[in-house]
């Protein structure tokens, strides 16, 4: 049996899954005392189930997201090695930023050595300002980490107690500003995240649950809780990822669907294309900071059941803010929820109050209560369906860098709209009809996120880049850089080496028995020609265990692999 646990800001949801069946579920308030909230949730779902039957626990949480949103973390100093390119004034982060010379180029060659004097003065500056956390990030450091490591070593010579985070260990992909942001956030949230993880482990311990524990990443993959301690930033947006995987498990396989999570103030949109959740092409945008965190594509639209509706001149206007609960629940202003009530589409609230809300809006326009309600419904519908169409169009507009990628682009439209979240059911029929789709509210929609966590498949990836002219290879995820020993090196050997590292990683994370099939997601070879002869090869390969879910719920416990 698996436990799925979603620790949100307001509620903690838990489910107990036995093969593809929900055995029990619960929703308890998340209190200040995290440990006791977790214990309460466990006790409710575990009633009568012995702890040794639990084979795996998977978590998702908005903890890190909330920490960053509320800026509740210690300041982090930055030491950057940007080299030539954009003006340094572009690297403006909300903290002390020291720029150090030293240049690495796109192939990882050292163009200008690290100036030691610069480094020491940067360290002195940060020490003078009492920074104890420092992120060290260099341009092209994922191609050669020599400079970052050297800066780190010099810091630790003088300040052994500082927490130093290096860019190449956090984010290996190209894009220096995003690497800086990911490294900074990782450094900032590390200790708070450790506290969270320890509370979870303590709760499990006190109930004798000793199975492996994983946490869901923003891209729908999972990693063991222990190893996640060094990369907390990867867990940001694990909440939305959990709810998308949950929906994937709750709808029929192979569906192309829009997921609609209509809440009080926002509506989150996500796409499942041909049964697979859509991954964002670029790293996550974390409250305006662009990062390298790989995430499922989620679009937040500022409209929900509690959004304020106002009458301006001869028009009704839907505002993106919330000033309180809906009028029919004792709030100050008319909202879409009041319109739902008038049209008999929700059980919530007081009918008399809802009618009153519509009258307030309808009076200056001289229209009937039901027509006001209908117009509000139409506005919500237009906003949401417009954004859904945008999302599909944006997906079609993604850049392509190869001939075959351009040729295989096609137009896809959804056939199902899946609703989760409080206000979804009332708006669903109209939205589905507008998009010419089937509306669907799956069973257990309230705890879709905890279900998503429970069914998530453990995943691992290894990306290897070999430069045979220089005789070195680098591993993006591990931050490892070493010499190529098996010469002459070629594409096949690169693939085998990547798979070897994948198994090594799996073993490190205790996943060697859970790997399933290994997919090759990228294989590219570029001949390097210098002076008209081939001088070497650049080989890029990525291998990964399959992402996705282990079970569909309600299919009689069918395992997907069978």
């Amino acid at each position, binding site marked *: 049996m698996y436990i799925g646990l979603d620790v949100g800001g307001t509620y903690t949801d838990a489910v107990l899954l036995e093969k593809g069946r929900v055995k029990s579920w619960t929703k308890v308030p998340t209190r200040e005392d995290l440990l006791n909230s977790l214990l309460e949730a466990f006790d409710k779902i575990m009633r009568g189930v012995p702890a040794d039957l639990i084979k795996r626990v998977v978590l998702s949480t908005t903890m890190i997201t909330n920490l960053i949103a509320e800026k509740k973390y210690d300041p982090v100093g930055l030491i950057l090695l940007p080299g*030539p390119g*954009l003006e340094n004034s572009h690297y403006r982060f909300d903290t002390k930023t020291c720029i150090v010379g030293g240049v690495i180029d796109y192939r990882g060659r050292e163009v200008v050595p690290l100036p030691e004097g610069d480094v020491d003065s940067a360290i002195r500056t940060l020490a003078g300002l009492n920074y104890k956390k420092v992120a060290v990030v260099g341009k092209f450091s994922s191609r050669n980490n020599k400079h970052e490591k050297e800066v780190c070593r010099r810091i630790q010579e003088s300040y052994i107690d500082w927490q130093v985070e290096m860019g190449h260990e956090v984010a290996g992909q190209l894009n220096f500003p*995003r690497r800086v942001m990911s490294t900074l956030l990782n450094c900032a949230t590390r200790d708070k995240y450790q506290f969270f993880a320890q509370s979870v482990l303590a709760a499990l311990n006190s109930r004798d649950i000793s199975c492996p524990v994983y946490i869901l990443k923003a891209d729908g993959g999972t990693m063991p809780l222990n190893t996640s301690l060094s990369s907390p930033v990867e867990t940001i947006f694990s909440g939305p990822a959990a709810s998308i995987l949950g929906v994937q498990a709750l709808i029929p396989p192979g569906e192309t669907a829009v997921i609609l999570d209509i809440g009080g103030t926002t509506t989150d949109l996500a796409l499942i294309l041909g049964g697979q959740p859509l991954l964002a092409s670029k790293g996550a945008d974390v409250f305006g900071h662009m990062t390298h965190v790989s995430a499922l594509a989620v679009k937040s639209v500022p409209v929900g059941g509690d959004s304020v509706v106002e009458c301006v001149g001869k028009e009704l206007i839907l505002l993106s803010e919330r000033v309180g609960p809906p009028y029919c629940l004792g709030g100050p202003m008319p909202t879409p929820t009041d319109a739902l009530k008038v049209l008999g589409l929700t059980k919530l609230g007081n009918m008399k109050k809802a009618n009153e809300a519509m009258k307030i809006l309808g009076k200056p326009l001289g229209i009937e209560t039901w027509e006001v309600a209908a117009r509000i419904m139409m506005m919500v519908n237009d906003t949401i369906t417009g954004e859904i169409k945008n999302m599909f169009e944006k997906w079609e*507009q993604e850049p*392509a860098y190869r*001939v075959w990628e351009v040729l295989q682009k096609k137009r896809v439209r959804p056939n199902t709209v899946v609703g989760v979240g409080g206000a979804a059911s009332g708006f669903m029929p109209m939205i589905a009809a507008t998009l010419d789709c089937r509306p669907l509210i799956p069973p257990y929609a309230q705890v879709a996120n905890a279900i998503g966590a429970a069914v998530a498949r453990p995943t691992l990836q290894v990306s290897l880049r070999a430069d045979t002219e220089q005789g070195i290879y680098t591993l993006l995820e591990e931050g490892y850089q070493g010499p190529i020993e098996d010469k002459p090196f070629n594409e096949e050997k690169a693939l085998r080496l990547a798979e070897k590292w994948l198994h090594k990683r799996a073993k490190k994370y205790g996943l060697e028995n859970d790997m399933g099939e290994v997919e090759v997601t990228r294989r590219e070879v570029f001949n390097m020609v210098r002076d008209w002869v081939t001088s070497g090869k650049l080989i890029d390969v990525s291998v990964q265990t399959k992402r996705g879910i282990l079970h569909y719920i309600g299919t009689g416990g069918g395992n997907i692999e069978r």
Partner: protein
Amino acid sequence: MKGKKTGVIFFPAFDWAISPTHPEREERLLYTRDQIFEEGLMDLPQIAEYPPKLATIHDIARVHFCVPRVQSQVTEAHLIAAGATMSLGDSIIQGEIKNGFSIVRPPGHHAMRVVHGNRGFCNINNEAVLVDYLRRRYGICRVAIVDSDVHHGDGTQEIFYHDPDVLFISFHQDGRTIFPGTGFAHELGGPQAYARTINIPLPPGMTDTTFHYVADNLVLPLINDFKPDFIINSAGQDNHYTDPLGSMKFTARGYADFTRKLNPHLAVLEGGYAIETALPYINMSILMALAGIDYSKVREPDIDSCSFKENPDRFAQVQKTVEELLDIWSRRDKADIEKIFGSGKFYQRKKHIYYDTDYIEEEQFEKVRLCGSCPGYMLIESRADRGYGETARVFAVSIPFNACQDCQMEAYNWYEEAVNKKKGCDFVQMQDKSTDTCLSFDISKNQEWKSEGPRPGV
């Protein structure tokens, strides 16, 4: 213009090459990709990245007479490179972006109107495809094309040689020292478009000083006078001091400053084969210059150890050429065309064209109708030798987009006569740009193909 973004389509064609060790191979834009992506330029608010689209066969046929047909000369990579350029053109005309950079492969400025094969690494002229597309779709008329590749943009020159509404300016390494061996100052355009083609051959070894002397004293004043609706820069990057094919000494900074001054609507990547030492830095600084971002910190790694000195004799030579061309330009409307080109119903010339990549020899006989009310239609007889006695002969008729009715009728008669005669050639082709119709007749199969573009505004 303010507040709008710079559009960029980056299409490195990582799965397309002429041959594995050819300069025009998969690796060419790899380091440019690395540099631009690591720099995070695509995330900047001043820049918007667009996906490439495919040009249609008709978009190609509107410009080129491909022998025997378009499909035999283009690969999908060509359609994407041309389509990307068109797509940025769309976004600029529709006001979505202020300007654009089409960083695409394969290049195109050596491709001429008739295409028997690949020459100078080019099959399809991306800029010409864009110009005819913009004219058809948006009614854009006057266009300036400035070619800053080290090689003479002979394809673009040839296509627009008789077009009075296209100002083509090319500065390049002297044709006596580099492919394609043309682009001398006396090549000034045909009788209907005199001084609309301007060539400034530069002696080898010239530096940014010459680059900017030519830009400031010739290119910019001419564009200012011409008042084009749309400015294109054929942004070849092989004038760089590290280029293996060219012998010039321009820098990335020089290219960026030039881009800022010219302020083109669209820059289209052409040549440039110093894929490690030049392309990452030049492409990045051109993009930054277009987007109005400070590029002063973009530097080649070895720039400090280089000291380039201008040769005063050669510089004086360039100054003299520029002055002569300015003089010709200022008297362009008073020139005695009959004295230069002769008189009669047609102007005609013979051309010999060599396809260096595909080893094809082409003989061409070109006639232009000297019409008083429009630029006049063109008749081309072309015969290509592919070696081993294998030849292809085509008779082609081209009607300009602003043709008068008489020219249009006469041109159709020429086409029909050639089709009916059924001898002297293997293929008869016609492009009627005034109605956006292309016809192609295969004599041996006795069969005609016809394609029509979408109606304007559709």
